[in-house]
């Protein structure tokens, strides 16, 4: 498991054209210093990359293997073929969870990205108290998710939260009972999730916007472009890598959403707000079915590849095109 940063990795090492230049400059230095200078980057770079790669592949491989075994409370290496998969696919919990994942995923990603971008653009308008606003939008991430889920559960509960408050202010017919409505409860998770994550999306967008070269702005302003046009034509194209980062982060957030639901709805009313991560945990640790839970986890990751593979394909295509066009 220990990554080997030694010569074996050299052929795949960064194709540094720097050493040539460095060598020219360092001609006067002793050979050993030169060697260190050449190898140090590899020594520093490869271990973390390798640890990451081994962690991802190793753990995924282990889980995949477990998913074909009869493991219950403890890992057990008796092979059972696809039995765990069929059991998970046939369970109501899993069917509800996958449907919910689509609704929640789409709602959450769109809402959070939109909110995050909007807030970043608003904050970028050289406003006073920027630091305060930014901290207010970010703080939901600071509080333990178990806690924020609980607080939202109170606020969204019709008998003690917002509905009661609005009614007590005189609007007697006001209804806001999504939390206890089987059809609508999943949207309360969208709201609470967006509340929690949009600040971070804002921070990422803001980091991107602030890194756009000031000259580009000036040039656009000189051309007489309005602020809306500058954002659309100059800023947004320049920060597309940030969009990718935000989408990946939100996607992983969607897939891994766990604490929030556990505290907000507990998967209810009934089992109406089950999500795959809850099913995985429930199978593995509540029901003591490690094999079956692993099968659910593997299917969760496979569904993810449906999104990621086209993305990497697109990246490849884009890179090739860029290379061709110089």
């Amino acid at each position, binding site marked *: 498991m220990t990554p080997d940063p030694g010569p074996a990795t050299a052929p795949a090492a960064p194709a540094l054209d720097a050493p040539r230049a460095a060598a020219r400059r360092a001609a006067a230095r002793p050979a050993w210093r030169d060697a260190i200078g050449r190898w140090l980057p590899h020594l520093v770079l490869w271990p973390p990359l390798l640890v990451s790669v081994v962690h991802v592949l190793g753990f995924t491989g282990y889980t995949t293997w477990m998913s074909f075994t009869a493991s219950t409370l403890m890992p057990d290496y008796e092979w059972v073929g696809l039995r765990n998969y069929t059991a998970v696919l046939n369970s109501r919990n899993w069917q509800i969870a996958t449907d919910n994942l689509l609704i929640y995923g789409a709602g959450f990603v769109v809402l959070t990205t939109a909110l995050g971008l909007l807030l970043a653009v*608003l904050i970028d308008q050289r406003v006073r108290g920027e630091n305060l606003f930014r901290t207010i939008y970010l703080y939901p991430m600071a509080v333990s998710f178990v806690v924020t889920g609980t607080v939202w559960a109170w606020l969204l509960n019709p008998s003690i939260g917002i509905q009661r408050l609005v009614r007590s202010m005189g609007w007697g017919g006001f209804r806001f009972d999504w939390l206890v409505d089987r059809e609508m409860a999943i949207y309360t998770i969208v709201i609470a999730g967006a509340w929690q994550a949009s600040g971070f999306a804002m921070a990422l967008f803001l980091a991107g916007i602030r890194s756009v070269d000031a000259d580009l702005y000036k040039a656009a302003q000189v051309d007489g472009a309005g602020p809306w046009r500058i954002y659309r034509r100059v800023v947004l194209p320049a920060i597309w890598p940030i969009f990718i980062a935000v989408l990946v*982060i939100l996607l992983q957030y969607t897939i891994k959403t766990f604490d929030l639901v556990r505290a907000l709805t507990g998967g209810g009313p009934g089992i109406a707000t089950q999500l795959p991560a809850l099913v995985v945990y429930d199978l593995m640790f509540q029901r003591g079915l490690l094999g079956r839970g692993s099968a659910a986890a593997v299917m969760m990751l496979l569904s993810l590849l449906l999104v990621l593979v086209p993305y990497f394909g697109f990246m490849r295509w884009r890179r090739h095109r860029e290379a061709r066009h110089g």
Partner: protein
Amino acid sequence: MADRLTPARVLIYALLAGFAAFYLVPLLVVVLNSVRTAEDIGATSVVGLPRELAFGNFERAWGSYCIARRCEGISPYMWNSFLMVVPATIISTLLGALNGYSLALWRFRGDNWVFGIITLGVFLPEQMKLVPWTLVLRDLGLTNTIAGLVLIHVVQGISFTTLFCRNYYTAIPQELLKAAKIDGAGFFRIFWRIVLPLSPPILIVTVIWQFTHIWNEFLYGVTFTSGAQQPVTAALIALSVSVSEAPQYGVQSAAVLIAALPTLLVYLFGGKYFVRGLTAGAVK
């Protein structure tokens, strides 16, 4: 321009304030509960105004509430969390910046595959990795140590930090690097002199992410530590309840606020690195 109140600017401030209000409502509930007595909350509702101010909740939460027979509040657990979160955040951020730099600016054969696999790492749910991590920590002899938790958070965190940094660094023009290479700068010199000065916004984003996630992580914290070594999230949960007990919402809310302070301070003080001009200035 910032001082003239045109209708557009009024609208901007109105929107900012409106959103701020929306974001603050849940915090308000927690703050109000933190100064309410348990009887007050129990007898009325968890959403409401205090009948009398009970600031004692903070004192109890910090230093005298009994968690597992240790009546020291959450303060010792806060310290445990610091011991875990500070090294894990620094190491994972640093490694992520290096990884991102090499993946974005020093293309090598298979770099896309490496990046793809590392990115996949952000999607692995921690529930799935609990058993493998148990085995790894056992084999390394790190069960029930804070070092074990640091290791977990660094390894998992590299996926996120690499993703953030790599995507940010791809926006750095290749011309800058070429010029530096012609000047004879090597791998670390370019990183140190060119890339790092451009990095504060993304590094603060990375630190925010790592710090809050490690600080708030619960599952590994309770599984891989014991008793007096547990992080603060474990103590926060311990303040809340099981089936058979009425929640101590007052003390709990106070504890939640105290426990959130370090993260809030990171946001507040880290925020100044977002200021525009820094990057533009550095590039020139």
